């Protein structure tokens, strides 16, 4: 799929630095006006991908299209992109206003430059500090000036490279809302790079999870969260419990480590004996004190009530994190760690009973398994 006008397309992009392959055969299509986030652990290649789109790195192979035209061989200054860097990269020898105005000299906008600068300073709400030099600005102010500077020449595409990572948590949350709302107002195609999956989910129209120079999964935040395609995505995006097992019985159960079983969702068509990896979100598991729980016998006995019905397993609470609106409970289910999130009024403790709805168990793609063994996080 390519977007004929607007947007960014990346076709079979490979970027190599010496012996290191930073990106391998990456293809992406970002729609006009879309807020698209590249998320992944550090070193995964997401920044390289953004820099290649910006023209700051040259691809070893593949093409980059911006707004429908092949931009692969264009230098950065001709691509019509605005970039906000992680460290803001404000010119230290220019005032905030001069920084914002800098790009305008290279572009012919219908309105006068002064007017445009004022507009942008208004947009980021920083008219009051316009004549300060960067070292007199706070981190958040620098960030917004950098955003205003990138937007001033009316780029086709806005590229943000971890723009909030140096800021404190509450400022980060406020600014990401502001960035998102500015992006919506301007309806500008935006590529956002972050290592913070929560930020990615919160802000984006779509998300691409990047790992080891490849795209692991592309989808809406909800899609990626709810239906991770691979073990890596399952573990990287949000908290998750992932189990490896083998399909047993009539294809409706899996045996984990040969000592425990979990039900399989009804619609899977895996045959008996197949290896399978499943994930269960902590918030999809209920937890009850063993005493208050409906006694259903031994924790490891197989539930006989059939697919579709909730099952319970015995576990022991090890540690509890208080999250304000909930508890994250780290339990041990036999020898396996398992994490549960509960909004109960008091933290569970001791022996507990965990409840699963069978449709909370998500089957991950098998192709991922060889690379994902070892529990890389």
């Amino acid at each position, binding site marked *: 799929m390519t977007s004929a006008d607007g947007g960014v397309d990346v076709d079979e992009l490979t970027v190599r630095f010496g012996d290191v392959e930073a990106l391998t055969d990456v293809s992406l299509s970002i729609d006009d006006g879309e807020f698209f986030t590249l998320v992944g652990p550090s070193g995964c290649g997401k920044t390289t991908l953004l820099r290649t789109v910006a023209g*700051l790195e040259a691809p070893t192979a593949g093409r980059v299209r911006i707004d429908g035209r092949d931009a692969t061989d264009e230098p*950065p200054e001709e691509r019509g992109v605005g970039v906000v860097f992680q460290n803001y990269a404000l010119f230290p020898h220019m005032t905030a206003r001069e920084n914002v105005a800098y790009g305008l000299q290279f572009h012919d906008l219908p309105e006068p430059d002064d007017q445009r600068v004022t507009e942008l300073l208004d947009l980021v709400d920083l008219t009051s500090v316009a004549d300060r030099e960067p*070292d007199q600005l706070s981190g958040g102010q620098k960030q917004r000036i950098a955003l205003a500077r990138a937007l001033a020449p009316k780029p086709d595409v806005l590229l943000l490279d971890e723009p909030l990572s140096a800021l404190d948590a509450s400022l980060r949350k406020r600014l990401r809302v502001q960035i998102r709302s500015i992006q919506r107002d301007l309806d500008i195609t935006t590529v956002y790079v972050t290592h913070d999956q929560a930020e990615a989910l919160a802000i984006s129209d779509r998300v691409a999870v990047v790992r080891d120079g490849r795209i692991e999964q592309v989808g809406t935040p909800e899609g990626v969260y709810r239906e991770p395609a691979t073990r890596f995505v399952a573990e990287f995006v949000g908290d998750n419990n992932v189990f490896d097992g083998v399909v047993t019985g009539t294809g409706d159960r899996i045996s984990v480590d040969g000592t425990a079983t979990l039900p399989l969702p009804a619609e899977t068509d895996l045959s008996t004996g197949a290896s399978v990896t499943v994930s269960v979100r902590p918030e999809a598991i209920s937890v009850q004190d063993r005493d208050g729980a409906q006694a259903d016998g031994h924790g490891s006995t197989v539930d006989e009530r059939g697919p579709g019905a909730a099952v319970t397993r015995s576990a022991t609470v090890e540690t509890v994190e208080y999250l304000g609106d909930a508890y994250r409970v780290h339990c041990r289910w036999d020898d396996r760690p398992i994490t549960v999130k509960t909004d109960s009024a008091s933290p569970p403790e001791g022996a507990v009973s965990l409840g699963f709805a069978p449709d909370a168990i998500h089957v991950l793609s098998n192709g991922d398994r060889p690379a994902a063994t070892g529990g890389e996080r």
Partner: protein
Amino acid sequence: MGRRDGWALWVGVAATLATLVVVFYYPVGRVFADAVAVDGQLSLAPIRSVLGDPFYTGAAHTLVTDPAAVPSGVVEWLAAGAPAVEFGLFGFTAYQALLSTLVSVLVGLPGAYVLSRFEFPGRRFLRSVTILPFVLPSILVAVGFLAMFGRTGLFNDLLGAVGLGPVELTFTLEIVVLAHAFYNAPLVTRLVTAAWESVDADRVETARTLGASPVRAFRDVTLPQLLPALATAAVLTFVFTFMSFPIVLALGGLELATVEVWLFARVQSLDLTEAATLGAIETALSLGLLYVYLRYEARRTEPGGASRGLSRRPLVDGVRSLVDPLRLAVFAYGAVVLVLFAGPLVSLVVESVTTPAGQPTGDYYAFLLARQASTASGTVRPFPAVVNSLLFGAGTLLVAIPMGIVVAVVATRGGRGSRAAEALLTAPLAVSGIVLGLGMLQALVFGTTLFGQRLTVTGPVAIVAAHAVAAYPFVSRTVTPALRSVDDSLGEAARSLGADRATVLADVELPLVAPALVAGAAFAFAISVGEFDSTVLLSTGVDTATMPVALERYVGDRSLGPNLGPATAMGTVLLAVTTVSFVLIDRVGGRWE
């Protein structure tokens, strides 16, 4: 990096290379060809004959003449208790260069400390004129040093006044080393001051809050940030003093001869093969050192990003501050500077108004006026010489600064072989002036036959080009580390905003490295104003004479008797003109900082 550069940069690279090829690589290559060829055939014979001559290489000559005997020789030597070994002329030359480098650093480093960490009236002026010694012809330095440190010099008078001395310094290695420090300690001071002014205060303060004493914070945080500049200055000082020539024989005598003395003697007697061979070995050693250094520097310099400079404290802060040990040390250092730098310079000025018998006289300045009024052909007039020097200096700045910037930009791009390329581009520092002069004479003055035409390159344009080639390495050497420490993302931000590579350089990078650029410009100007050899070679008559040329003519002029009075008067004019120029360069450049 696959950054695409604007055409402007490539035009700059091409113009720089073209200039270098015409006035440097080709002429020098023509000379060096003699070192590796006999009768048109490639041969190692010339180099073997020099390296295998114990006079040149001392104990090391067996490495060439009888390599098989080296291990047993070393064993015998160890068995004999490892007595001192002589390494011939090359060994002594390296030894005196090492001593000179050490002393230059010892003298120059505190100067950088004072200039960058203290505030006092005249600080900027002092910083501007630090490199004044650079422009002085050696004959005048010899005059100043004899008047200051000679048997009957001012220094002994001062020592005598406090009941010390006298010290006999003339004709010793010590005075040669001091003269080398006079030339090169300012280089250390100037380069390190520029680096010190850009030390990030945050890091120093971090170290202090972690419990480091000021001394530890200096050692652990400041010093590592100064090291690249300090190492640059030390390497350059070593290379310069390794190739030192006139000052050695003018103050020390033939017993302290360096390789360059022999090189000059070979050129004089037209034994050009051995001259070329000596020059090639010198250059190989210097370039090797530069290359090793450049590799080290590239590894060391880390991007610093925008940083907050250290604040200066007042040198005098109430009466009590005068007895604080640190300030006492600074004042003691000031006394050393007065003796070592101001002493010879002031002595020189005093000589220009004193007869050999010690009587005050205005004759030497009257001589300058008479020369100015003269109509006799072949007379070098002082005022046109001043004007020529300034014009050539300005022309050199116009050519050397872009060249230096281009080379610095190429050097900071990185990539395979870029250190080797940078070393080659820095080669004008590593080639003996005598070799370059010989090459220019053969290739440019006598001309080169190209497409059946004999092309000669002389006159003012050639002089400016030659000065620029000698000067630009100072610009690139000061700018490269500074440029390397500019955060890449600043340039990338500018490019994404629509600026091409050249605009990024002009709008972002150069303003950020302005202090280094101004330091480089001052050096470049100093090199041009002080340059003598190629100016004389490429000049087409007395109309292109510069201040040093005038000075040299007045050295040989005995109309006021065989004394150097007229030369010292011209030298004083040279000092005055260059002082004003340096202050102007710093003021104009300072507006940009």
